[in-house]
């Protein structure tokens, strides 16, 4: 959920390895091609994940397990969605429609998937953007203030980071609700009206992520501060603060940037929980409803969007990485 220190190492390696292409134009083209392939594969994974497991899509279409449709309606529905075809035919049908840009109709909401997503995407993107920004600010504040300072301060910073990283978002959301919404009444307990309603959901997502980013950044800041160029800068008369901010920080943020694409992905996943708890509109809640109601087109639609966001976030993270560390670019251009 948050302190996935475990998969972090793998993530960093994977993201770095993908940054290896030729000239700028070729790089963009091959990235776009790779993205299309990934989207295609993502839809495939979702399609089969939903079909490998038991469940009755006909009932899903007609309003879930509690519906009581007539045999005629069932037959009509089966014909309409091609549900009587073998799985590979259904897959072929779905994919060919997808290739032409048609995400289909939502089973449960009875309207085009595109419309459902378009209506809900805004609040989720807003929540993610504010969460990642807040997470980075908190992480940098903690790391820059406490790394290699007084042992007590350092221990405190490190402990706070470890604890934040271990907080499950859904529990944190409930605790924040109990304290700040119901107890102190500073923020509204639910909905997405106004900036105030964004504060608690953002904190619930950002705190654990901040703990995680801080752990990664702290480690790399410590490594950076041990590098000879730091000593070298100090022999030129630079102060400790100048060395930290002007030299070490730039090196220290690199691993965190690599992990940020993964972090954005995990934020969408966790948005499911947070949006449900705060009764916020958004893709997370839509996805949750789509999955529980076995609404295949809507589920695939949302996972495709999630994949797309992940791809874009990866591209953005790579771009930022190269801006911070131009050595990589020089190797490829």
């Amino acid at each position, binding site marked *: 959920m948050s302190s996935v220190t475990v998969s972090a190492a793998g993530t960093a390696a994977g993201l770095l390895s993908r940054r290896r292409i030729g000239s700028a134009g070729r790089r963009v083209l091959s990235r776009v091609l790779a993205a299309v392939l990934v989207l295609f594969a993502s839809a495939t994974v979702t399609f089969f994940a939903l079909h490998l497991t038991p469940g009755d899509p006909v009932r899903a279409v007609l309003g879930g397990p509690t519906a009581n449709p007539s045999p005629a309606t069932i037959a009509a529905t089966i014909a309409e969605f091609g549900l009587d075809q073998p799985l590979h035919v259904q897959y072929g049908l779905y994919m060919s429609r997808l290739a032409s840009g048609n995400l289909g109709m939502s089973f449960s909401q009875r309207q085009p998937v595109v419309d459902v997503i378009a209506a809900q995407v805004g609040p989720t993107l807003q929540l993610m953007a504010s969460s990642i920004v807040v997470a980075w600010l908190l992480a940098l504040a903690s790391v820059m203030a406490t790394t290699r300072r007084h042992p007590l301060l350092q221990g405190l910073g490190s402990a706070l980071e470890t604890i934040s990283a271990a907080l499950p978002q859904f529990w944190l959301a409930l605790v924040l609700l109990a304290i700040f919404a119901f107890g102190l009444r500073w923020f509204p307990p639910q909905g997405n009206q106004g900036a105030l309603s964004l504060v608690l959901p953002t904190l619930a997502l950002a705190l654990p992520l901040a703990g995680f980013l801080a752990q990664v950044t702290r480690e790399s800041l410590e490594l950076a501060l041990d590098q000879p160029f730091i000593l070298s800068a*100090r*022999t*030129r008369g630079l102060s400790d603060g100048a060395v930290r901010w002007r030299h070490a920080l730039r090196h220290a943020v690199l691993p965190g940037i690599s992990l940020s694409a993964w972090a954005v992905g995990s934020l969408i996943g966790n948005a499911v929980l947070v949006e449900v708890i705060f009764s916020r509109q958004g893709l997370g809640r839509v996805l949750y409803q789509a999955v529980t109601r076995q609404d295949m087109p809507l589920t695939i639609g949302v996972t495709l969007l999630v994949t797309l966001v992940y791809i874009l976030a990866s591209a953005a993270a790579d771009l930022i990485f190269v801006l911070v560390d131009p*050595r990589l670019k020089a190797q490829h251009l």
Partner: protein
Amino acid sequence: MTEATVRPALVVEGLAVTLGRGVHRRRVVSDVSFTVAPGKAVALVGESGSGKSVTARSLVGLAGDGADVTARALRYGNIDLSALDERAWRRLRGKDIGFVLQDALVSLDPLRVVGDEIAEALAAHGWGTAASRKRRVLELLDSVGIPEPELRARQRPDQLSGGLRQRALIATALALDPPILIADEPTTALDTTVQAQILALLETIKQRGTGLLIISHDLAVVSRIADEVVVLNHGEAMEQGPTAEVLSRPRHAYTRLLINSVPGARPRKPRAAPATTETVLEADGLVKSYVGPDGVDRVAVDDVGFALKAGRTIGIVGESGSGKSTTARIALGLLDPDHGAVRFDGAPWAGSGEARVRERDRRRQRPHLGVVYQDPLSSFDPRWTVAEILGDALDAGGVPAAEHATRIGELLERVRLPVETAGRRPLQLSGGQRQRIAIARSLAASPKVIVCDEPVSALDVSVQAQVLELLDELQRETGVAYLFISHDLGVIRQVSDEVLVMFGGRVVERGPTEEVLGNPQHLFTQKLVAAIPAHVAGLDAVGASLPG
């Protein structure tokens, strides 16, 4: 430059430094004294752990957290350095005392352009305006001999060659024209020919009136530039005095050991002709190219060949990127050549196309072709003890498990290691001990040839000498042949019967070692020969007169 004023000197008397915390706390420097006068160069010489770097760092107040620095006198001009607080130290660093670390690739911020690094040194002391700093940066780059300063100022360390990079690093330290310049291993990790250029630059700086303090493990460097030398061992000054005197008439045994250990100080000892003259490893017309990261083919090895006879040593010398290590890997059968072929022990060993040899066919013979790497640690499985490492090699040579214990004891004895070493892990051993284990491993199956790829480059000189000695003795005892790769012509001179000089993937010169060294034909070889320590004033005579 301030020619009129007298530049202050740096006076150190009875310096002592204590480092570490708790049980690890110990004194690393005791009672070291010297004076760095304007226009003079003092050298601190010692091996790793001698306390030379700590000494240098405590002169700019950067000995490290928890360091306790005391001295009878620690003066720069009229300033008492032992009384400075951090703020005062900062004003002094860079402005009064400049500092150059080794390896500019990591001692300059790898993410910034060198112009910014130099300008930052100026800005830290409030020097000039942004525009005047910019001009000063170009001036400085020019003064340390960097061509096209406008272009270079906008490049990062990784975009510069090793020599330019080191010059740029020196420029950062010279930015405010400090009267004193401390250089910590300024030429280590540079190719031999580049080393000479950097030393020449330091010489110029000295002649401009700057006082130099040079920290080095390398007597050759010291003999070229220092007026006075301080020999450090375990934090204590063993001997000190004018360079020529200390090097030509060393009084202390440790100084003699250091001088005697300089590779190439003595030519190869004469030896009896080997019993057989069969050729054991033979390469012919080797070519290997790589596709670089930019998609362009690079020829790493171009038409390289040699014939190694039993009990003899062929040395391959060259700078980084000369193709010597690629040649070693092809000879080992770990890399297939694009053209050409290798024969080992009379049978095809590696080739290309039709002549390609399958790994399956090589495997049986592999134990008879040993290898010793520069970094032995990474060549050992980190989970294993020495006994397991050697047992594994004995397994490969088909020695029955029942005999392992006896044979491991024998192998350790052969490489002059105590038997207790068997129970330890490589990580717990010193660099020299690790290299001995690597040699023991390669000896496990009575090899005919051992390929040594820079086997002593990472070792201190005295340890280097011991390992070279060991290799020499093993050759006499067992008649093993060596293919010996090194960037150090001194090392090559000491061990090789025959030498191949590689440059840009090609063999530019070859022949019996003393012939090539005595009368180098190729320009590159001449440069290399000019740079080896044995040809440095003073050392030649000493080396020859010392008992072997």
